[in-house]
């Protein structure tokens, strides 16, 4: 007898079967999994940031979990170090997540794990980027090009274009022949501001590309389309101040170049397919590699310049000498009359104790940790922030540094020893290997100074344009709106590389007459440290010789409550590019 023939058995049979299927589904669903993509199609550069895209499946426990990226550096022969990075988001359910992580040495597989609140690994995967590792930044291509760029560019899709500007850290030049998604434009413009090189092959299709992000970095104003003598459609417009035409055809520009912040923007005025091979070769030669601006060297130099807090050797010598003389005097007395000797010793050493107690008061407490934090904000239409943290510690114990950055800080080799591999500056293994943790979520870095006593990190963030500089060139006036710092102590207004110091900037709007009195070199030479060091470094990294710029520095400050044994200094540097009307 079959179930089909017996309706009484049919219902329980189907119920049982459904329950079985449901149970199987639950069992299968009980194993969460992770899919990870790091870099642009896996292409990464050591010691630079890379985008990370994550897909989590079958995680619905309701509890929040974090994602931990573990990188192992070096090998047993060279010594190893482990870098553990906790990403800046919590996972509560299935879905796609994005972040940006610093890559150190992708020769070993990179492990990515989903860790729950109890510290249990829920799911993990590892990624081998050995074959897609580059030693230097590489060109990135979005869209298509008719000819090959010098080195094979890495192609990306729209979904792969990151929305945080520091994720483009490993890109040498970005080639755009299709309009990127709207949310990627701001990141691209910010990356260019920080020193990136972008080639926008828009041509007459410009209006498909048009966006506020592109308009702000475009080397031409009032764009229009015109048919050239060759019958080809050209994008034309008014060249912005400082823009140039490195490649032209029949008097019409083919390539227009402009500097935006520390970076370069190239606009191709015709369709990529209409370029000749010679023009394309000329174009490739004209595009420089991106060079990210950094104040790490300044931060290290200022750290080195910090005075050491300690009692003097002379006071210690004096103490030793007086103690010996006091003992001798007490002994001479004590040999005649013991009580007198004891009394003399008591008085002398009590007095010495009071003196040394006063001398060793809190102002002379020896500092074991010196920290120099430099926050650099570069503002044009968009703003970016680059934080540099330099630490010196004479105490080899592990320390936790709080870093208020949006990104996971990346460690940089000290400028003094650039030829050494970075892993040499990581904590070295002992009986139990050192873990070197970066927790982006709480903005903390745990590090030890075993072996190397100085460490430098840098971290990036986007920032609102809290300072705005509008220049009325006809009236010879500059209007600065300051919504950022309470007080900027060292400020300069620079016009085409010449300028003058201006008094401290209050909050609100101030108007200044433009006076280009001194050259940058003269300004540097007459300014005191640390302002001169910063100004000189900025002159090397930014095109201050061109356009109108405002440079402002906060006083070198102790940012918070004085912690015993620590000396922390903070410097804010604001650089604003003026908008000339």
């Amino acid at each position, binding site marked *: 007898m079959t179930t089909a023939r017996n309706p009484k058995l049919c219902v329980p049979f189907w119920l049982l079967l459904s329950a079985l299927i449901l149970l199987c589904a639950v069992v299968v669903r009980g194993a969460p999994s992770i899919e990870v993509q790091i870099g642009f199609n896996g292409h990464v550069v050591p010691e630079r940031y890379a985008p990370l895209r994550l897909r989590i499946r079958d995680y619905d426990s309701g509890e929040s979990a974090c994602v931990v990226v573990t990188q192992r550096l070096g090998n047993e022969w060279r010594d190893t170090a482990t870098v553990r990075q906790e990403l800046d988001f919590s996972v509560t359910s299935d879905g796609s997540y994005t972040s940006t992580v610093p890559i150190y040495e992708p020769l070993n597989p990179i492990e990515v794990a989903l860790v729950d609140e109890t510290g249990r690994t829920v799911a993990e995967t590892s990624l081998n980027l050995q074959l897609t590792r580059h030693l230097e930044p590489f060109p990135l291509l979005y869209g298509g090009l008719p000819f090959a760029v010098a080195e094979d560019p890495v192609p990306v899709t729209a979904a792969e274009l990151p929305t945080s500007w520091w994720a483009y850290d490993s890109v040498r030049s970005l080639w755009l022949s299709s309009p990127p998604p709207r949310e990627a434009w701001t990141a691209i413009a910010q990356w260019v501001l920080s020193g990136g090189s972008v080639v926008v092959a828009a041509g007459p299709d410009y209006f498909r590309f048009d966006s506020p992000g592109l308009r702000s970095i475009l080397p031409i104003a009032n764009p229009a389309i015109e048919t050239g003598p060759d019958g080809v459609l050209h994008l034309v417009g008014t060249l912005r101040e400082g823009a140039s035409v490195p490649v032209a055809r029949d008097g019409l520009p083919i390539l227009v170049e402009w500097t935006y912040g520390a970076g370069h923007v190239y606009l191709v005025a015709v369709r990529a397919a209409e370029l000749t091979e010679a023009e394309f070769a000329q174009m490739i030669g004209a595009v420089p590699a991106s060079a990210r601006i950094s104040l790490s060297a300044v931060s290290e130099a200022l*750290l*080195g*310049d*910090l*005075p*050491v807090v*300690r*009692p*003097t*050797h002379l*006071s*210690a*010598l004096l*103490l*030793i000498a007086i*103690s*010996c003389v006091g*003992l*001798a005097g*007490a*002994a001479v007395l*004590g*040999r005649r009359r*013991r009580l007198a*000797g*004891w009394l003399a*010793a*008591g008085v002398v*050493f*009590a007095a*010495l*104790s009071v*003196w*040394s*107690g006063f*001398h*060793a*008061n*809190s102002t*002379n*407490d*020896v*500092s*074991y940790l*010196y920290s120099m934090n430099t926050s650099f904000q570069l503002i044009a239409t968009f703003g970016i922030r680059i934080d540099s943290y330099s630490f*010196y510690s*004479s105490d080899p114990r592990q320390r936790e540094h709080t870093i208020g950055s949006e990104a996971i800080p990346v460690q940089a080799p000290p400028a*003094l020893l650039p030829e050494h591999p970075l892993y040499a500056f990581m904590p070295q293994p002992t*009986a139990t290997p050192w873990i070197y943790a970066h927790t982006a979520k709480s903005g903390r870095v745990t590090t030890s100074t075993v072996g190397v*006593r*100085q460490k430098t990190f840098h971290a990036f963030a986007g920032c609102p344009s809290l300072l705005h500089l509008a220049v009325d060139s006809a009236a010879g006036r500059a209007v600065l709106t300051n919504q950022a710092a309470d007080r900027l102590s060292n400020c300069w207004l620079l016009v085409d590389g010449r300028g003058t110091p201006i008094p401290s900037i209050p909050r609100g709007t101030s108007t200044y007459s433009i006076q280009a009195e001194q050259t940058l070199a003269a300004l540097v030479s007459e300014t005191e440290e640390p302002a001169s060091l910063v100004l000189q470094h900025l002159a090397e990294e930014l095109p201050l010789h061109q356009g109108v710029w405002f440079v402002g520095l906060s006083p070198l400050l102790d940012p918070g409550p004085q912690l*015993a*044994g*620590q000396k922390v200094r903070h410097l804010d540097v604001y650089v604003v590019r003026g908008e000339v009307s």
Partner: protein
Amino acid sequence: MTKQDSVFSSDAVQGYVLLLLACGAGLLFSIPAGARVSDLLELSWSPSPLVFYLTYVTLVGLLGTFRGMAATRWDRHGWATVLRIVGHILFGQLLLLPYLLFSRSFLAGRGLVLPLLTLYATCASIMFSLIAYRVELWGTTRRTHTFLLQYTLFGLVLILPWAIGLISQVPTVLTLLSPIGAALKIVRDASAGELVLAFAFVVAIACAQLVGIQRTLRRSHVV
């Protein structure tokens, strides 16, 4: 003529001057050299401020050993000698008080460390002096030279538990049985349990020596 048991006897004053000079050298070494952080980076050798505390504990222990050895030549016996030894050690601590207060600047605001370390060093010094006194008494009754034995014992108690404790397989708590290990732990923030263990060990050894000294003296009276 100064009595030999006086803190102002030539023998004792020499010891105290050496104590002041050696601890002073430790203090000088502990002050970071260089006026700027860049100077500290360029220096290939910059000793830790722990140098002073290690010198202090070692030398105060050695002072106890010296005084313990010398005590058999004094005109006193029994508890009076023990009390006089303690007086010598406390005088040594009085001399080092200005150094200790000066070293407060190395401790970065951890004020409790200093009295704890001073108390521990005093206890350890008394322990060493009693060990030395007992061994010296034992040598006197048997008419044997105990000079090397005294220093060997001093070195063993001072260093051995600390050195063994550094081996990864051995529990690190063993380092607390050595005055060096205990002093390092106190300076680097010891827990209450660790403090109890360090003090208990030193006090227990000192008490054992007192019992031993009493027994030796009773036996020598009988003889």
